[in-house]
């Protein structure tokens, strides 16, 4: 009997009204347009507590955000639930590890999770649209997600690794 494919959720978050801060939602939009089987896509300004209820339904959860200072074109790292991060000073910006912490605490679920940070450059102005360099990084990250979903294999990507080595690998 063949193994059932993993159910994957990608949540892009950020503010599209603040230039490259919209990289997360832009990635969500790009991969949603591909209609990849097994992938559910969501997007929002920021992560909030109810994302924990949704995350709890999936085998793999990918949080996609703009990264102000990370490696180019993007990084991917494994993350786990953190109770401390559930205790944000506000409700309007729960961190990915906080969402996972709540998923475990409230819904007894521990999906395998990754934080995908797409490097951005321009954040300090109002306006729609990504910078040219951010768009290049977005394309690379989109390819990574496409290949990872198709293969069912996500892996960490750190500074110095090339895009060609990411896709489809375990």
């Amino acid at each position, binding site marked *: 009997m063949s193994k059932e494919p993993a159910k994957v959720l990608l949540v892009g978050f*950020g*503010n*599209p*009204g*603040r230039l490259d*801060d919209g990289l997360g*939602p832009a990635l969500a939009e790009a991969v949603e347009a591909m209609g990849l089987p097994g992938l559910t896509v*969501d*997007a*929002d*300004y*920021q992560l*909030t*507590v*109810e994302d*924990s*209820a*949704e995350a709890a339904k999936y085998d793999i959860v990918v949080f996609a*955000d*703009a*990264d*102000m*200072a*990370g490696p180019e074109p993007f990084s991917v790292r494994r993350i786990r639930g953190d*109770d401390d991060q*559930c*205790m*944000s*000073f*506000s*409700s*309007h*910006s729960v*961190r990915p590890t906080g969402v996972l*912490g*709540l998923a475990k*605490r*409230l*819904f007894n679920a521990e999906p395998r999770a990754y*934080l995908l*940070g797409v490097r*951005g450059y321009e*954040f300090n102005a*109002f306006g729609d649209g990504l910078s040219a360099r951010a768009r290049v990084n977005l394309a690379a990250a989109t390819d990574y997600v496409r290949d990872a979903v198709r293969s069912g294999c996500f892996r960490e990507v750190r500074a110095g690794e090339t895009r060609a080595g990411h896709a489809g690998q375990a």
Partner: protein
Amino acid sequence: MVSAKQKRIVIEPVTRVEGHGKVTILMDEDNQVTQARLHIVEFRGFERFIQGRPFWEMPVTVQRLCGICPVSHHLAAAKAVDRIVGGENLTPTAEKMRRLMHYGQTLQSHALHFFHLCSPDLLFGFDADVAIRNVIGVAAKFPDLAVQGVMMRKYGQEIIKATAGKKIHGTGAIPGGINKNLSIAERDALLKDIDQMLEWARGALKVAVDYTVENLEMASAFGSFDSSHMSIVREDGALDLYNGKLRAITATGEKIFDQVDCQEYNDYIIEGVQPWSYMKFPFIKAMTMDDGWYRVGPLARINCCDFIDTPEAEAARKAFKSVTEDKPNNITLAYHWARMIEVLHSVEKIRDLLNDTDLQGDDLVVTGERRNHAVGVIEAPRGTLIHEYEVDDNDLVVMANLIVSTTHNNQAMNEAVKRVARDHISGVSEITEGLLNHVEVAIRAYDPCLSCATHAMGKMPLKVQLIDHDGNVLSEKNT
């Protein structure tokens, strides 16, 4: 300026509220509080930013003001631009779709605030161990409540998505109407969970009622004071969160003004300034800045209205008013009770709207005689929200004035901070985290939204400092 004999306590940022703010408390050498202030440390300049933009962009553009209540700004701006296109008399489908969106927003906002920001204080005590006085502590000891908070929030967000089209930068409300109706599939998906929401809303109200009644003596004194109250009410005096006319009452219930057309708000409200704050201090024009300030939000709305037009919420309102012998309730902590009455009311309204076939209508937009000036007012979850726009003949915004709920409550929150500092911190030689949390509890009751900023990985400063009279940091807490 802090003198050599004064001690300055800074709470920065205030936690479990929406946005960034800080509290400063000045104490003299005898540890008596001499001054306590809430500062809003963000400066947005949004009113200037939108000048020169086309007016029809406003319902979408202004959502960028805030990631917590974008729907409120969306609808307040839409109501203003309705008037600019002469389309303020919406079709039944358009008005009911907007109302559904608004009740969804109110439900999710109030539920999140109550269950996840405030319930730790109410369930564990203001000065309980900070290690358990948080949402994880609630999840551990009251798991059902914690899950209900999340699921009610989620339900409200699903309503917003179904009515606004999407969660980010929803486009549902457009000048003179709405751009979609509610499909049968969307309706049925939402109706499936409505009975559960109703049951949870009743339960949440009971938690708030029981807490307030069981702690009435403490609650009556905690950060409380007499004040005026303001909200919009329907023409027959009913609570109405979406549309109505302005009413202000005194602390004892006498009407200061009533049935004021929102287009004329400027004749009744004026915005004062203080040199130490970016936020303005609105007050009633016929009074002075010292005695004309007022409260808005759930407490003010339940105080101002004559009745609620949904049966369970109306019964809850009567019980609420009986505590103060039918006079306005001026208890700061009673905001929670009032907020949960509105949760129940919102769920009742959502149920009624979902069963209304007008939501499947196709007549979505109206237009009429164009205007160059308009005001849109809505009762946002946190209180009265005013959007005013002046546009030129090229459809560009030349003036904008936005008065958000938290600005209306600015002086009231400062009063609450002062009273709690005086009652709980004056004369105390060792300032504990629990004592400082008392100040935050008073602020949290108002559910202030201090405006949100953009974010990206690595950007979330959290710091509490205790500084002596020489400016030395005695202790520091990063959260």
